[in-house]
């Protein structure tokens, strides 16, 4: 059994390294993600942000060559333990992707499908409404629930994807550059929504946008490639205001102030 104080964090990694075949994409990450806070992962492209994020809900399993060393602990249980079912992990840790990817179905079905396959027994209409409200989308779509989700704008589609994730009641929501395909206004809506959501959920967001990280997150993890091995790791992890105002690492300072590279 793990000591009880492990559970003060939503999720925790211990000496986590992630490989694609021989290639070690992410090295030795130790992070403690706070509950009901927004944690941003920032860093230059190719440094392994998405790889790390996908490890949290075992989406990397779909890359046949990928494997991990070390542990990711959710409530004290190692997500990569032998007895763990990755399908169950993904239900508890939801994910919102870079490009909005609603199902080619109605708005209603987009939310109902995930709930149904996970054995939801309650009132479906209620769940759909609650989830859409939680994703600040209800007022815009309540009259067209039967219409195709593809008719929505990009920003609305992304909020629908968030609603779809909320509907399966995860503990943690992972977001991989959720606003990078959206215009500034839609981006702002998503950011506001995240502030709402953190009351109930722990959120981990990957972003390449410094201002966004500074605006929305409570904690920030700075990732960087190790020069020789081309392998990424977290070089600094702290409260966001610390990372952006008085970082300890010179590379972080260069990066957040735009002097990187």
């Amino acid at each position: 059994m793990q000591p009880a104080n492990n559970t003060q964090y939503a999720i925790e990694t211990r000496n986590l390294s992630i490989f694609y075949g021989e290639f070690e994409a992410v090295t030795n990450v130790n992070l403690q993600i706070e509950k009901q806070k927004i944690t941003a992962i920032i860093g230059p492209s190719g440094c392994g942000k998405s790889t790390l994020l996908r490890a949290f809900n075992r989406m990397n399993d779909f890359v046949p060559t990928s494997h991990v060393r070390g542990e990711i602990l959710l409530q004290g249980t190692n997500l990569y333990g032998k007895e763990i079912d990755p399908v169950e992990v993904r239900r508890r840790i939801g994910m919102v992707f870079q490009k909005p990817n609603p199902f080619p179905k109605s708005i209603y079905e987009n939310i109902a499908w995930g709930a149904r396959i996970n054995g939801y027994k309650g009132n479906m209409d209620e769940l759909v409404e609650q989830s859409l409200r939680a994703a600040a989308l209800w007022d815009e779509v309540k009259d067209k629930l039967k219409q195709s989700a593809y008719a929505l704008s990009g920003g609305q589609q992304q909020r629908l994807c968030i609603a779809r994730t909320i509907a399966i009641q995860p503990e943690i929501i992972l977001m991989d550059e959720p606003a990078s395909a959206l215009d500034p206004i839609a981006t702002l809506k998503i950011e506001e929504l995240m502030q709402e959501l953190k009351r109930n959920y722990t959120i981990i967001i990957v972003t390449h946008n410094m201002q966004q990280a500074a605006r929305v997150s409570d904690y920030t993890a700075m990732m960087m490639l190790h020069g020789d091995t081309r392998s990424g790791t977290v070089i600094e992890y702290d409260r966001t205001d610390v990372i952006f105002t008085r970082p300890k690492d010179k590379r972080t300072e260069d990066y957040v102030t735009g002097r990187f590279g």
Partner: protein
Amino acid sequence: MPSFTYPEKNELERFVAARYRTGWVWQVIFLSALIIAIFSLSALLLNIVDGAFGYVAYEFKKDPLTISEKPLDQLNQQELIALLQANLSRGAYNKLNNEKPMESRSQGELYNLVIERIIQVKTLQTYPLFRSLFEKAAIEAEVSERYPGARLEFRSWLSPTFLTTPQSSKAEFAGVRTAVLGSLWLVGIAIAFALPVGVGAAVYLQEYANKKSFISRVIQTNINNLAGVPSIVYGMLGLAIFVRAWEPFTSGAMFGITDTNGRTILSAGLTMGILVLPLVIINAQEAIKAVPDSLRQAAYGVGATRWQTVWHHVLPNALPGILTGSILAMSRAIGETAPLIVVGASTFITIDPQSPFTKFTALPIQIYQWTSRAQSEFQAIAAAAILVLLGLLLTLNATAILLRNRFQRRW
């Protein structure tokens, strides 16, 4: 700073003109290629159409006017039966009556019988469509000189009757009914086998198997190569396995059917099924590949299992592509001849196929047999049968296009 020299003024104009000239030459070459292609294809089609219609010179063994006062097609059932009784030998009449009682035959059937057995139309010469259209006088002259007393009539060998009458040893009375039904049965069996097996295999290869593994790559390469194996090889396989080894099953002996051997529709259909299987697999794989990964991620992201993802998202979205591919596979099957000859299509049958365990013939077989007959009237019905086959192919391909347009999704 390196110096970059480009052509100037006069030199430039010449240079640009030269580039246009080269472009123009290539354009003409491509256009000629297109014209050659169109020309050869039209020549093929015109040649077939040319054979399927045109003047026919024929004579009667007995003049219809001498055996009946009224025109034959105005006689009723009773009068036609009387006519048959009067003009046929007793034995011949009784034989026909035993095959199917005269009273139960329709007026049309009896009329055909009269034409076939009493009047005995004999085709002397057929003329192709274009000659018939443009050299009518020459044809008339030739007929009156070479076949005195013969009648000349413009005839479309392709007709509703042609579609609905079975095979006959006389070209004038032959139709493609048995062959068309045989072809439909064959394609039905082939697709009933190849679609589920092919789609299943494609789903496994795309969604489950590790595509980078050695075994997957070997299997994939083999499937691609199998799609190019000459069809006669599949025929040999069908003969060895379905006709011979599985005879108890394919002949229906297992199910209590005793009067056939292994050369049944079932054997041929399964052979065709194996023949198109690689095509179905490859097409289904392409359709599955075209379903974007983001959709799979969306499903997995809300906690779906692999099976739920495949069943609820991948397959429904790949379905139009899978269907289109299957229809194209059907077109391939409907035109194949060689494997059917090897498996043992019947040369002459007139009864509709009733079950998978009956002997069969198919359109391409029928065409092949008719084209190998010397008489010009058989060439004409072969041309008509080719038109029927082309019609079937066009229908299938049009369906494929319709399906594709109707269900195509944009992502």
